[in-house]
């Protein structure tokens, strides 16, 4: 670890750097200077100082991340030297065949889509947020926001890949629409309580993207 960096900066500056790291780590998108000022309660000059110190720590060869400046906004990304390595990592992990849980989730999205995550969770009896995220990343599923929730459906690319012109070409599609109606039609919130002991809707709360 590079301890010399610490000698110049005060401990309050250290915690600002740490807080900034946590913010940029989680947020993903570029975060504006204004927002940093607001979140950390510091002046613009202090932001410059924190950014400079943060950049210095990232230069350490033990660090795999880089601070990207986009106009007056900042974003954490992986260092370019790891790009080839990470690319093959991504390909490998996506190349793996879908797990039974993923296929199950995909079948619900295909036959019953557009469908909410709460509905999928209810039918599967387990939380599906990771499965849906996985299918989104692979481009098999897409989502549109509706009110304060998301509706999931399969992508056209995926349908084409399956050799289908339209959803209706899925085997027994019509029959499953009937089944679907039996589940969902009457009164959605009444007939599909997500949980037993608390009927609050479990929705896309884990996605930081739905800010």
């Amino acid at each position, binding site marked *: 670890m590079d301890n010399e960096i610490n000698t110049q900066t005060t401990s309050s500056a250290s915690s600002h750097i740490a807080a900034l790291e946590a913010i940029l780590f*989680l947020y993903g998108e570029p975060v504006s200077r204004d927002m940093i000022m607001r979140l950390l309660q510091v002046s613009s000059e202090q932001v410059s100082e924190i950014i400079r110190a943060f950049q210095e720590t990232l230069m350490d060869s033990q660090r795999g991340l880089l601070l990207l400046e986009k106009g007056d906004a900042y974003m954490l990304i992986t260092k370019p030297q790891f790009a080839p390595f990470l690319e093959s990592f991504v390909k490998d992990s996506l190349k793996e065949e*879908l797990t*039974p849980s993923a*296929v199950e989730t*995909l*079948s619900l999205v295909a036959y019953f889509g557009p469908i909410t995550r709460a509905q999928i969770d209810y039918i599967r009896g387990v939380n599906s947020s990771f499965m849906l995220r996985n299918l989104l990343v692979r481009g098999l599923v897409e989502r549109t926001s509706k009110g304060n929730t998301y509706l999931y459906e399969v992508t056209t*690319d995926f349908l084409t890949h399956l050799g289908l012109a339209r959803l209706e070409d899925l085997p027994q599609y019509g029959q499953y629409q009937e089944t679907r109606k039996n589940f969902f039609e009457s009164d959605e919130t009444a007939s599909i309580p997500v949980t037993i002991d608390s009927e609050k809707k479990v929705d896309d709360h884990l996605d930081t993207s739905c800010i």
Partner: protein
Amino acid sequence: MYQVQTQQFSGPLEKLLELIEAKKLDITTISLAEVTNDFLSYIEILRNQIPSSGEEEGLSPRILSDFLIVASHLVLIKSKELLPDISFTPDEQEDIVDLERRLKMYSALKPLFLLLRTSWQTASPSFSREFMKDLPPIFYPPTTLAVSHLETALGNLLQSLGSLVVETEHIEKQLINLEEKISELSSKIAHGISHFSQVTSASPKGELIVLFLALLHLLRDQTIRVKQEGLFGEISMEKITEQ
């Protein structure tokens, strides 16, 4: 709906513990026998909380059944106290010892429940990143997935949902089994009482008979009332209809 109920009604072990603590007793089979009446009275109160049709709030038959199982063990203990000569099967003996042990365990774990509740309410959370957050849109179709796999997966899933029905039927069955068990025990006790000849309604044996009748009564109503309304009945509400 259920939220109200779970806050209002503690579980059977917790209730039992509460009754014992209220009498400032230790957890022993003797003190369990002591609170049996109170426990049965409490079940009677619970039973009256079962909603009439249309009401959203109230007690689920599922929870009542949990209380009845514990009640049956209590009655075992009580009958042993009132009729020391009564013979129990090894299973029944085990039930008696077991309830006491479970109650001690539950009592030892109560502070843990409190601890977790407090942590849950006060802890500062950490956050993680989304899976592959920075990845640009790509299309990575699975190579071996065929349309038929989707249909099979959906079919299996819907079928497994059907087993939720089994769950409810099972509870009903469990209660009927319990009822049979208690009937058996009643006749055994009747037999035990005949050994003592002079039974009056004021005697402890008379009290025991009353206990059994009360328990049987609670059970009989219960088993008749457990209902399954369609495939998703017990999730959407396995409700009890007051007649």
